[in-house]
């Protein structure tokens, strides 16, 4: 399986041997997608659920994937939607308002077995959690995943200009929040 790194190669394999191709997809993308999901949903258990659902959805909808688009952005879009679905479900179950979800997730952060950050990292994560949902996604994709605005635009169906403005605004907000500590 090593040496098959380009999406174009993977797509070709999917077309000829779907099972083998999908195994390669899982191996290549599970870690990346996990960390993207985890930064949004915070808890490991929730990220685990969303990751599985992401690949199950991808498997079921492989027939609808257009080979001219990028496998990478397609998978990230599914993962983002699964994360948001999970967050919305948590909001409903906990009867949390839209404005409180950041504080609610911050509470999950502090109590989590699988969070081992120092004071600075905790402050940064708490600051990120204060951002509006979409802005948080933009910030995470740019700052941690170093994704291009072009790819982000395909995932979030938002113009590159709006994404740049959103990221710039997110950075300013986080710097301000960190400065207040």
């Amino acid at each position, binding site marked *: 399986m090593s040496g098959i790194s380009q999406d174009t190669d993977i797509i070709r394999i999917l077309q000829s041997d779907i099972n083998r191709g999908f195994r390669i997809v899982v191996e290549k993308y*599970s870690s990346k997608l996990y960390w993207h999901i985890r930064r949004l949903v915070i808890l490991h258990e929730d990220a685990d659920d969303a990751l599985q659902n992401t690949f199950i959805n991808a498997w079921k909808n492989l027939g609808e994937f257009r080979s001219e688009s990028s496998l990478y952005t397609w998978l990230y879009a599914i993962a983002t939607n699964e994360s948001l679905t999970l967050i919305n479900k948590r909001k409903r179950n906990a009867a949390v308002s839209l404005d409180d979800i950041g504080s609610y997730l911050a509470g999950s952060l502090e109590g989590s077995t699988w969070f081992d950050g120092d004071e*600075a990292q905790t402050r940064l994560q708490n600051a990120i959690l204060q951002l509006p949902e979409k802005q948080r996604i933009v910030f995470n994709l740019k700052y941690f995943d170093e994704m291009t605005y072009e790819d982000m635009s395909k995932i979030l169906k938002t113009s590159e*200009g709006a994404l740049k403005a959103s990221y710039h605004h997110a950075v300013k907000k986080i710097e301000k929040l960190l400065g207040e500590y």
Partner: protein
Amino acid sequence: MKTMDETKDKNPFKVPENYFEEVNNRIISATVGAGPLIRKKGISRSLKLTLAVAASVAVFVMLSYTAFRLLNPDNRNRWLSEISTEELVVSYLDDIDILTLEENSDLSAMYDSEPVAAREDIIDYLLNENIELNEIYELL
């Protein structure tokens, strides 16, 4: 105080040992390992097209028939005679209630009680709605 960049490369989130190997196996079992992918057999494309055309024609015929009934003076009078006086009176009263409400509503009180949105909240809203801030700055 550490800057954002100093904390960026350190991942504070942890996973159980061998997690990715284990989750990959679970995913494969739930997908590839679950058997051949059964694609839903829907109706064929040409049949869908035929049904769409048939539905459009049916809607057009219904609308034409209804329009004919409404516009035909003899038919209109016949319909009015089928509506009871009580039903007509109730429908007029509903209209009057709406107008009375509008006359009595204190619009200024509504505006006074409107909360003022914070500048930050407005900017967040605009960004989330995909509105280009530069265009707004130019207008201002």
